[in-house]
């Protein structure tokens, strides 16, 4: 089926599609344009803004539990005003603390950094950069967003139930997740958590199927796979990872639902619960869940990280006015990371009684990831090297991403060793590692993408001054929050504790914890500044006046400043070269649509 047929979906009309017929074809109402839209650009914005709502909620949760960690003895009466019984006397209760930690993790990992990041940019960039009118199936694409939306509503509703949201950690290990009697959060909160996550998996699968089909089938004439921008390669591998790993998580969840509700013994055994007695279940294995969970859980890390890597590659190249260094090595390393992602899940389980020999195999495979990661880092640095760098806010965040990826990646080499893991597992060292390398780094990739493609999304620019303030406070804050946590972790401070001042060994960290909490609040406030910038600029930002404001080569900048549904008026442009002809033959840049001249030096 052709691009035209996809957008119009009336086979009979397809033969008359040419010229500028797109502009007066659609009669869109408010509902079909903004709510149940099938335009990939609008769906991208829906993902982005829903993701932002979740980022604010998830960030606010971290501020609340950092308040408890930084000021374990203080009381804040206003907390009782907003949280009610969860903060009796102005101090967050222990079960509320666990609920906050759990929901913060679930929301940030899945709703913000999976749906908000790859949902936004896969939808926005794939059709625009491969030269397609829309996704392979715009209807499935719309369903993908609305499944995400329903998942969001269900997850949000779990915050308001009597017994509170799920509080057994974002990984939802049984028995806490399988036994309603285990904790208050394991009751209705866990049911809603499971429903929300199942809907989320459906949303991810629908989206991922579409992204893969679009990239492989809907590229414009001349757009061979090796001419694709690296953003598209990264989003492609992200989608492949999601499509192959989310179903395994779903099967783990299905078994969990049976254990919770139908009395089976997949994960539960005859354990003793105080106040309930011994369970009637026999012979279940909680470790089985961990295998199924981490078989998704580890690829999930790369589902979060790869889109950021792709966008950063693109933005670094554009703003260095240089071709990306080692294009094929970048593609190859993405591929290597995607393969290795499936072979390392047991490094999350080194201390579960895993056979040490098996552990050593997983150590080797885990440390192998350092190779493609280092290739990418060197290629980013050599792209910057002697470039004619333009420090736009998007570029600042892209460079910040590289910095964070190096800092966080190096501690990955520590944690990948099963021997070191005996000491470091479940400490703040782990928290510091994954927040820097996956959490903050991917947020930086997302910010870079938003600043860079905002002109294409809304036809206006974000305010630069606010952008620079946002960048500097966030990067300084990120290091000030997570760097000290390495020391706490090395000292053995465990994660997920409610109050460290009770322990003689950790009393020394009271002031450090207060420092971290203070910085966390400042960084959160600056994100609100970014949100202000975002929404203000939609209406009042400086207008984009040229089609190609960054002087970029890729196809999205050949579309009108505010493209309609169908993206290009007239024919879809044809592609004649790769996406990185910057500074070639004395020209600043050559768009992908320019035919190769006879006087050109070697081309790709």
């Amino acid at each position, binding site marked *: *089926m*052709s691009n*035209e*047929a*996809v957008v119009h979906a009336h*086979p009979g009309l*397809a*033969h008359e599609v040419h010229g500028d017929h797109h502009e007066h074809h659609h009669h869109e109402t408010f509902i079909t344009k903004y709510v149940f839209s099938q335009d990939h650009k609008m769906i991208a914005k829906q993902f982005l803004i829903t993701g932002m709502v979740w980022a604010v909620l998830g960030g606010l949760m971290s501020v609340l539990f950092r308040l408890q960690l930084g000021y374990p003895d203080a009381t804040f009466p206003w907390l009782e005003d907003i949280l009610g019984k969860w903060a009796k006397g102005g101090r967050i209760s222990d079960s509320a603390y666990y609920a906050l930690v759990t929901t913060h993790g679930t929301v940030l990992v899945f709703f913000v950094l999976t749906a908000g990041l790859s949902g936004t940019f896969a939808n926005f960039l794939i059709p625009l950069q491969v030269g397609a009118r829309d996704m*392979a*199936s715009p209807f*499935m694409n719309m369903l993908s967003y609305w499944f995400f939306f329903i998942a969001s509503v269900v997850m949000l509703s779990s915050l308001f139930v009597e017994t509170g949201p799920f509080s057994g950690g974002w990984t939802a290990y049984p028995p806490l997740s399988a036994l309603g009697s285990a904790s208050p959060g394991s009751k209705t909160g866990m049911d809603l958590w499971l429903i929300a996550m199942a809907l989320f998996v459906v949303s991810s*699968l629908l989206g*991922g*199927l*579409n992204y*893969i*089909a*679009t990239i*492989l*089938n*809907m590229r414009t*004439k001349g757009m061979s796979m090796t001419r694709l921008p690296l953003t598209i390669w990264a989003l492609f591998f992200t989608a492949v990872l999601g*499509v*192959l*790993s*989310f*179903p*395994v998580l*779903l*099967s*783990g969840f*299905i*078994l969990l639902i*049976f254990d919770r509700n*139908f*009395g*089976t*013994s*997949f994960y539960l055994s005859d354990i003793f619960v105080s106040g309930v007695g011994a369970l*009637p*279940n*026999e*012979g*279940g*294995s909680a470790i*089985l869940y961990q*295998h*199924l969970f981490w*078989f998704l859980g580890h690829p999930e890390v790369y589902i979060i990280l790869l889109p950021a890597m792709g966008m950063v590659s693109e933005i670094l190249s554009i703003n260095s006015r240089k071709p990306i260094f080692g294009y094929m090595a970048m593609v190859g390393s993405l591929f290597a990371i995607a393969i290795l992602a499936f072979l390392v899940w047991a490094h999350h389980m080194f201390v579960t009684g895993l056979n040490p020999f098996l552990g050593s195999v997983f150590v080797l495979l885990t440390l192998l990831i350092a190779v493609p990661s280092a290739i990418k880092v060197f290629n980013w640095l050599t792209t910057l090297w002697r470039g004619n760098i333009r420090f736009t806010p998007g570029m600042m965040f892209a460079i910040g991403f590289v910095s964070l990826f190096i800092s966080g990646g190096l501690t990955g080499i520590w944690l990948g060793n099963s021997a070191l893991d005996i000491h470091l597992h479940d400490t703040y060292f782990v928290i510091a590692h994954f927040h820097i390398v996956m959490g903050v780094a991917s947020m930086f990739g997302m910010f870079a993408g938003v600043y860079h493609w905002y002109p294409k999304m809304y036809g206006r620019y974000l305010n630069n001054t606010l952008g620079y303030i946002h960048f500097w406070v966030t990067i300084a804050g990120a290091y000030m929050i997570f760097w000290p946590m390495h020391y706490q972790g090395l000292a053995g401070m465990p994660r997920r504790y409610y109050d460290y001042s009770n322990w003689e060994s950790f009393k020394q960290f009271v002031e450090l914890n207060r420092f971290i909490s203070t910085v966390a609040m400042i960084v959160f406030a600056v994100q609100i500044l970014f949100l202000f910038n975002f929404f203000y600029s939609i209406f009042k930002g400086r207008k984009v006046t040229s089609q190609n404001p960054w002087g970029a080569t890729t196809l999205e900048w050949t579309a009108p400043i505010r493209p309609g549904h169908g993206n290009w008026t007239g024919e879809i442009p044809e592609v004649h070269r790769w996406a990185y002809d910057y500074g070639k033959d004395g020209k600043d840049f050559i768009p992908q649509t320019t035919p190769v001249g006879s006087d050109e030096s070697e081309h790709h």
Partner: protein
Amino acid sequence: MMMTAIQQPNRPQRLHPHKFTLWVAIGSIVMMFAGLTSAYIVKKNQSNWLEFQLPVIFRYSTAVILVSSLTMHLALKAFKAREMGRYRMLISTTALLGLLFITLQYLGFRNLEAQHIALVGEKSNSSASFLFVITGLHMVHVLGGVIALLVIFARAFRTRIKQYNSMPLEIAGTYWHFVDALWIYLFVFYNWIG
């Protein structure tokens, strides 16, 4: 597909995007069942695993789903030859055989319960629960195929609009053969591998 050929005469024929999407979805479903059957093997090698005979009815259901794949194949051939009467008969048979398959699987579960092998609940052993959950999920996937056939079935009896595009039927057919193959895999797995 013909449309594409007229529009872009010099481009090589690519797989229809919807058909391609189906293949990716099949990969996704395969991963789900691979996860479940791996969990089955892991659990089997731990303590407390109840061994029991697979119900004989599952052999009949295997035969039924194999025949339904054949009728599906013939239905597609009849559609392409524009033998609409034959096509309607065959597609109805396929859907009915799908429903028969689901019924037989259900009877198989009843048969196990009659032998006092609990599938769920307090006295259940995870070997029977695994059989129930995995087979049940497969039944849900067959049901999905039946629903897809019903939609196509309704179209086949429409008189006002004539349907010439064989793509929806091809997609449903590929899916149908896939759930058939998936059951064969599960049947072999239960009997000889797991």
